[in-house]
């Protein structure tokens, strides 16, 4: 056994010795001895310092020493000696990306594998390979997108089993980590596993800075939307074109190739838009789902009086007025889409310059919801979803529960025992005081 902070162990030992010494040399009532000539001794306080050959109050002494030892050991952080096979691995092999990247995945997985490790294959489903060998990794590939969450669940289960044989277990994920594999549950499932998760990316991560493109806005001079997007510094991984006048055939062609057209008319309603029977005013508008799967969706609401004159064409609603009526819709067009925004922004005033509106416009100027090919997630996103380690507090209670206690639970148990010893010491001390009285 070793300690993380041995100085606390040394301090505890010294303190325990001091307590024993105090029990040997303490203010106490000296032993009573009848002496007929006691009257000739001078009067003095009855309690005096005396040395005892053997300490008294052994129960009290034992409890105090135990209390000190427990607290010091808990603070020192005991670590027990490791067994022969210290670290086990659960290797998650992502084979859901077809034969293109399989060679690199296979090579990385084989390099990470060691005898005794567990192997989890991820394709359309995740499954653990029984008694895996190095050849278990050499398998066929599929092009069906798998779920990283499912792979994490299976690998955690395999990790718990493996932990009964090893001192520590880490999960190694070999994958290109594309966005379509990740979902909102991945990060939560990762936090369930208290150990480390090591990610091995087989392809180069996307350069967000390089691939980011500024949203192009076609508008007249002094346009409020253009100003808001410019202030937001709106960039997008995909191609987005905000049009404030009218859609041209070139725009349509561009959208069919995968671009996102945000039709946000500044004045007259385009063709196909319905004019409302009577103009009214809405006092808030919220963008709900104008984000692709590869980007985190953020709700953005602008509270301001908006004059409603037209309604967007039918399609997938991406923004709604406060009364629930659609304010913006999205219609698929080829590989891209056309997003119709029926929100009239007043040309006067500073509404477009407010932070809420900038966020609102930024969310509307996102790439198409269903469009675009799956892309590798960035390193920052990956480290957020699958961090190497998690702080103990974020681990869900009961995570990785097995018949072996995790090392972090030992100091807690020691502190609990120390509290119990302190209470017992209090009771024993009171009992001794009552007996003396």
């Amino acid at each position, binding site marked *: 056994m070793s300690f993380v902070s041995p100085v606390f162990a040394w301090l505890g030992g010294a303190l325990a010795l001091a307590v024993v010494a105090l029990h040997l040399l303490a203010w106490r009532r*000296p032993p009573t001895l*009848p*002496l*007929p000539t006691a009257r000739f001794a*001078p009067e003095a306080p009855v309690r*005096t310092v*005396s040395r005892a050959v053997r300490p008294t109050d052994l129960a009290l002494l034992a409890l105090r020493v135990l209390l000190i030892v427990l607290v010091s050991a808990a603070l020192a952080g005991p670590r027990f000696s490791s067994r022969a096979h210290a670290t086990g691995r659960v290797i998650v092999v992502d084979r859901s990306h077809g034969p293109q990247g399989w060679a690199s995945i296979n090579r990385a997985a084989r390099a990470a594998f060691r005898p005794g490790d567990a192997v989890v294959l991820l394709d359309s489903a995740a499954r653990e390979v029984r008694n895996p060998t190095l050849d278990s990794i050499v398998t066929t590939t599929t092009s069906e997108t798998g779920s990283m969450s499912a792979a994490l669940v299976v690998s955690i289960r395999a990790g718990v089993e493996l932990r009964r044989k090893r001192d520590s277990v880490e999960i190694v994920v070999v994958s290109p980590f594309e966005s379509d594999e990740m979902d909102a549950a991945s990060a939560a499932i990762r936090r369930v596993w208290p150990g480390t998760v090591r990610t091995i990316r087989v392809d180069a991560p996307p350069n967000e800075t390089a691939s980011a493109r500024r949203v192009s806005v076609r508008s007249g001079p002094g346009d409020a939307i253009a100003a808001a997007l410019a202030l937001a510094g709106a960039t997008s991984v995909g191609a987005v074109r905000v049009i404030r006048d009218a859609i041209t055939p070139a725009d349509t062609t561009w959208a069919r190739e995968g671009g996102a057209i945000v039709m946000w008319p500044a004045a007259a309603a385009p063709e196909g838009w319905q004019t409302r029977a009577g103009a009214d005013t809405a006092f808030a508008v919220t963008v709900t789902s104008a984000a692709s799967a590869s980007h985190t969706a953020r709700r953005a609401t602008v509270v301001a009086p908006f004059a409603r004159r037209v309604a967007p064409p039918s399609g997938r609603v991406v923004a709604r007025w406060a009364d629930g009526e659609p304010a913006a819709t999205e219609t698929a067009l080829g590989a891209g889409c056309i997003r119709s925004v029926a929100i009239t922004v007043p040309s006067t005033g500073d509404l477009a310059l407010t932070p809420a509106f900038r966020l609102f416009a930024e969310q509307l100027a996102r790439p198409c919801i269903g469009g675009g090919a799956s892309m590798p997630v960035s390193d920052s996103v990956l480290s957020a979803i699958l961090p190497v380690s998690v702080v103990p507090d974020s681990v869900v209670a009961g995570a990785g529960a097995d018949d072996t206690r995790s090392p972090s639970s030992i100091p807690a148990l020691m502190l609990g025992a120390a509290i119990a010893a302190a209470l017992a010491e209090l009771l024993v001390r009171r009992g001794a005081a009552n007996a003396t009285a």
Partner: protein
Amino acid sequence: MRERRTARDEDRQRGRDGGESSRETRGSLLDEIRGVKWPALRSVAGALPGAHHSRLRGAAPELSEYRVYRQGDDPKRIDWKLLARSDRAYIRLADDRSIVSTMLVVDATASMAFPERSLAKWRVACDIVIGLAAVAHTSRDPVGLVIVGGSGMRQLPPRTRRGIVGEVARALDDIVPGGSRPIAPAMAGMQSRMRIAIVSDFLGDAADLRRRAGEVAAAGGEVHAVHVVAEEELDPPSRSILAVDPEDASLARPFVAESRAVYLERFAAWRDELASSWRAEGLSYTFAPASEPASRVVRRVTGAALGGGRPDTASLRSDPR
């Protein structure tokens, strides 16, 4: 008076005396004091013949002097042969010898039961009493005993019969010292012309006792004080203790290294004051440490009688403390 004896006390007594060994010790004590005389300090007024000089002059065989016959003298005491030779009437005078009743008063209070384990103080007191009884009995003096204990007094009236020393020994063996009681009242009913020996530690009513003893001495009696002191009292333990007076539990004094010197000084001063006050009353005082053999103490007590009540300076000098 008979003290109640618990099983523990009997065990302690048995272990202390050791049965046969106790008798052997007493036997050796009596052997050591064989031949020791305990003459009275002054002429006694007794009529019964004994070993002590009597104030009366009678017709004892041992001639002391002749005196001219005076009217009223007993004609039987006229020395007729001298009358025939000298034609003068003389009567024979001889020093009469008489007995003196000896009453031994022994302190059996709790302070004498010390040390707790060995009861050395009480054992020495008993041996001294038995030794004095034996010496007095050798001179055909009547010997009596008064034991003053916590629960009362036990008294053996003065007797001259042969087994009186054994009775005294048995009476002492039956006693377990304990309790607290003044000794002076025990002397209230005693004849003024007795010889009284008080064996005690004088930690009780020492002043009253000395006053009463002075009255006895003034009335023609003879009082001997035998002051028994345990070795542990003279040389208390050096470790820290809480000393408690066995006769007064409320009197508890911590005994540490700093207080030891004060204790020794006070105790020595008290002993000196006690001895000088008794001797100032014309009484005999003998210091008897428990470490000293009882036979030697008996010899010193009887020797003090020969010295006519002079201060026992030798015993004081022998006290190393």
